[in-house]
């Protein structure tokens, strides 16, 4: 038995496992997790496109909109600018007095102009683009860091990689692999690669689709500028971060699936560990997947100012290492976890009676 033969075995095992991981009904939930943000971004895109088409038919020149001043009446505004795209009126009781409010919206071909009248006089005038590319990128960064890294990839990898060994124990089929003429380490490598290939394809695919959905409603000029500027580097960084997260979480959950019967324990401990990473001493920070992966994220995520102080502290990324150090650090961490997993798999016994 030589190395090329073992590599062929790894490939065969990975191929057999891949079919199960990709096409089983259980994988449906992983696909859903990976694609859900893209669906929401597509929804946002459709909403923007609909608004754009509605507004485009009722464009008002910038000069007319610039002539509108605070203190103008709604009637004088309508006389100059015509009927607004949106027009809402309501009354609100303020300091024992009924105040009449009216909000009107115009479009100058690029920006929305919101006019707020109180008691029949223009009280405020705000101009904002129909779609803010910069803001969307920040939102995407938030979705990537908070949803993908902390939830989707975390739970997705939990499902995929736990299934590889613990799932087979529960199905009472692991002996099928153990009775093959392959070293346990070969089996581990084959299964890990299968899980990795599946999770990377699903999650980087989901992130890429989400990225595309985020760019879709933006103007051609904005998109072109982004692609000629930091766009490709951003996309590469997001995809690399997603792939590295799969590599890191995958190894941890693969090992946990062999060492522990109940995945709740590693899931809760890891969720907590990753959550409090920012508070940990420097040496312990390095034992976290998020610590490395967040370092690769190109755009800092927005933090909700209204969030409680504790939540803000937990969500604030700890001081990141340089990108190259982060990638190497995560790979080293993964190698360490996989090495301990290979020790565990050698000792693993078939004892289905203990499972249920």
């Amino acid at each position: 038995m030589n190395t090329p033969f073992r590599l062929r075995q790894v490939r065969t095992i990975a191929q057999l496992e891949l079919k199960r991981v990709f096409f089983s009904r259980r994988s449906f939930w992983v696909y859903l997790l990976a694609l859900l943000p893209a669906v929401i971004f597509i929804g946002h895109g459709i909403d923007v496109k609909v608004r754009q088409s509605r507004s485009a038919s009722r464009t008002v020149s910038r000069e007319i909109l610039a002539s509108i001043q605070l203190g103008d009446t709604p009637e004088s505004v309508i006389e100059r600018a015509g009927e607004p795209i949106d027009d809402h009126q309501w009354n609100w009781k303020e300091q024992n007095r009924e105040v009449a409010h009216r909000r009107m919206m115009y479009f100058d071909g690029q920006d929305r102009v919101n006019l707020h009248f109180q008691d029949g006089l223009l009280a405020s005038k705000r101009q904002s683009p129909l779609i803010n590319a910069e803001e969307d990128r920040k939102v995407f960064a938030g979705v990537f860091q908070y949803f993908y890294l902390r939830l989707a990839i975390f739970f997705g990898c939990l499902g995929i990689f736990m299934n590889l060994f613990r799932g087979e124990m529960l199905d009472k089929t692991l002996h099928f692999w153990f009775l093959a003429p392959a070293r346990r380490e070969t089996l581990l490598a084959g299964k890990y690669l299968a899980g990795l290939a599946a999770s990377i394809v699903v999650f980087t695919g989901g992130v890429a689709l989400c990225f595309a959905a985020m760019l879709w409603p933006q103007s051609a000029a904005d998109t072109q500028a982004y692609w000629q500027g930091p766009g490709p580097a951003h996309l590469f960084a997001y995809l690399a971060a997603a792939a590295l997260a799969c590599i890191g979480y995958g190894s941890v959950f693969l090992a946990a699936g062999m060492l522990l019967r109940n995945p709740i324990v590693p899931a809760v401990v890891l969720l907590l560990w990753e959550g409090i990473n920012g508070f940990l001493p420097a040496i312990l920070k390095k034992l976290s997947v998020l610590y490395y992966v967040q370092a690769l994220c190109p755009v800092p995520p927005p933090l909700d100012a209204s969030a409680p102080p504790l939540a803000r502290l937990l969500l604030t990324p700890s001081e990141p290492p340089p990108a190259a150090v982060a990638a190497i650090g995560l790979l080293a961490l993964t190698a360490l976890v996989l090495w301990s997993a290979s020790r565990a798999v050698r000792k693993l016994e078939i004892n289905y009676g203990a499972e249920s």
Partner: protein
Amino acid sequence: MAVYKRGYQRYQGPLTSRTARLLVLPWFAWRRLFEQRLLIVLLIVSLFWPLACAVFIYLANHSELWAGLDREVSGLLEINGRFFLTFMNVQAVLAVVLAAFAGPSLVAPDLANNALPLYFSRPLSRTGYALARMAVLAGLLSPVTWIPGLLLFAMQAGMAGWTWLASYWTLAIGLFAGFLFLILQLALVSLTCSAYVKWRAIAGALILAFFFVLAGVAETIDGVLRVTWGAFVNPLRMMYRLWCELLGVAPPENPGLAGSIVMLLVLALILVWVLSRKLRPVEVVS
């Protein structure tokens, strides 16, 4: 024609009541659950926060201990609806973890080992079975939710006197009802997840994912679409809204009360539907 001696006589003695029979399942489940050391540890950890709250109530009712503090700080020591809301929030998170730990062993092993036909071949209906399983979680979660909550309320009432009780007696009802709704929600989610995946081990992760991922989805919807109705897919957020109403605390702008109640009911109906589809005494070939 052969005439056989009719020797068979069915049991004529007394039978236990229907409720007592239903409780056979929880008793057995509790015994097994409490054999797990980790569960005991979790239960003990879950009582730290009520203990801290009890200390807080003690301090709040001994003005001589904080006489030197300025008005703003001493204002924080007031025991009111917001205090109990904070207590409920923390205990709710611990209840979710407990449910994720204990919930999966309710139905998944019965389905995985094809034991349902054995249950349903006895005088036990599917509804009875589901209720008995939910009673297991209710029994487990009560000591970390409404029981310590009412004890804290009683402690505060005892220390603060009738004036406080007359003003805040509705808090006890709100606290009990609020936790009851939470237990019902957790029990339904746990039972459904447990029945859906059949695997004890994976069901726990699914219960955790259910609450955490839906919270993430809610935030994503709000962030991407620039709306505030995303909270309607976050069951714990809607429960929080309901608690605000029950405890008379100023609620957040979103989600609205009526919408939260409707969405919680819709969620419960979906869970019951999935559960009724999964709880069948049949073996599925896969």
